[in-house]
């Protein structure tokens, strides 16, 4: 698994539950407290162990932990650069949904060795979509539910999201767009603020 993914898990646990909790989970999962380097690659089993250990330690269902991770990736102040990169996907939430299919390619533009889930979007009409995700670990779809919910907020769209279980090895998310202009959403300037 790419270090970037393990690193996001680490930052999510650290920023949400504090350094001490992260240190406890890391230690229980056999990971050094310094965690992961985002540009290195780690054995896949480490990610699985870390997620399972976090759910156990936090006494929360695995799916909820993963969904919170997805929300964190878009909404936390420390990850504004990721939110910006996702917003480049389109000017509306529907544009963004369609851009999910290009997400792995977009990721590889920056990090050629980055593996991301594969997405297939089926438009069913009247604001209904089904998004198929090839999981990287069991429950990847729940990360996407959290991420899509936060992105809908970001665009100011009102959506109903539901994890629809498995279908031939892929996880299915149903998306119902109720109102694409429900709220103002967050501002997105094409050019990043000058450093």
């Amino acid at each position: 698994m790419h270090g970037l993914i393990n690193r996001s898990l680490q930052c999510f646990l650290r920023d949400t539950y504090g350094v001490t909790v992260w240190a406890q989970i890391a230690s229980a999962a056999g990971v050094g407290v310094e965690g992961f380097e985002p540009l290195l690659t780690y054995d896949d089993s480490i990610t699985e162990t870390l997620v399972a250990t976090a759910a156990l330690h936090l006494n929360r269902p695995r799916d909820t932990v993963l969904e919170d991770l997805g929300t964190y990736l878009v909404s936390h102040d420390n990850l504004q650069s990721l939110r910006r990169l996702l917003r480049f996907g389109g000017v509306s939430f529907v544009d963004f949904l369609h851009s999910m299919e290009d997400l792995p390619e977009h990721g590889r533009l920056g990090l050629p060795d980055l593996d991301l889930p594969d997405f297939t979007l089926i438009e069913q009409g009247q604001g209904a979509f089904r998004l198929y995700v090839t999981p990287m670990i069991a429950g990847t779809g729940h990360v996407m539910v959290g991420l899509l919910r936060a992105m809908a907020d970001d665009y100011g769209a009102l959506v109903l999201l539901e994890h629809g279980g498995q279908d031939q090895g892929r996880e299915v998310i149903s998306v119902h767009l109720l109102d694409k202009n429900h709220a103002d959403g967050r501002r997105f300037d094409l050019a990043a603020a000058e450093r």
Partner: protein
Amino acid sequence: MQILDGLGLSPASLSQLMPMHIGLCPQGRILSLGRTLAHLLQGQDPIGKAFLDVFSLRRPAGLHSAKDLQNLPGQRLQICLRDREKTEPLRGLAVPTAQGGLLINLSFGIRLIEAVRQHALTDADFAPTDLAIEMLYLVEVKNAVMQELRRLNLSLQGAKVAAEEQALTDTLTGLRNRRALEARLPSLLAQGVDFGLMHIDLDFFKQVNDTLGHAAGDHVLRHVAQSLTIETRSSDLVARVGGDEFVVVLPGLSGKERLGQIAQRIIDRVSQPVEFEGKLCRVSASIGLTLSTGYGATEADRMIADADAALYASKHAGRAQARFFSALG
């Protein structure tokens, strides 16, 4: 409208395809203008005005009349807004139209990011076929990756410095170790720097270890290390090279008198009893000295061997004293 008859495109359609185009009639007046260029002109209405009144050509230079414009097709263009000639030029290409006019299409080129910021451009200002948004995306990805690389490099650099420091340090006393000495001596000799070298061996250290235990011995070694640090300069190399053996290298010091004084001060300090858990530990120090003059760049080993010989002469002469190797001669 006339320039577009061949394809039947309205200026609005053309503007969607090419939001930064300029359509000119044969007289060099503006017939049509893409919406992004219109945005850049900030409310001016340039339709019907002479192209050269609204824009200026930076490349090719020397074109001043509408007639000159017929030379534009096939050339690389750099065009500025007339009232803002200090801003970065747009780049583009002109092609002749069937009606004898020109169709010019422009782009921000490499200055895209600055332009987006300066003119608050949005997704709608670019044609969907334009890769401008992808370029902006790539720049942000690149910056994020570079930032991570820089952070990783700094942390690796820090770890490398710490590991090197650790590899050259004696863990018990915090002094340098034999590896550090073996790395430093040949380079000092190669540089031709004059220096003095002391080989120090503790007297009666074995008795302390045997009667008071290893903890007392370690305490004494740390105390001796402290004494050596106090009696030397920070630029000197002080290394523990064996159980109770130390080497001090003093760059720039090659006077026997001065080195002899330092050696004596070390002996005096080390000879003071050290208290450990209520008991007094007594050791002293025997020292052999040698000077770098007379050794070639590859003779570090001989230099240490000579200091060692001088040290044993000190031991045989009754301990707690210092001798120079050359003095044996």
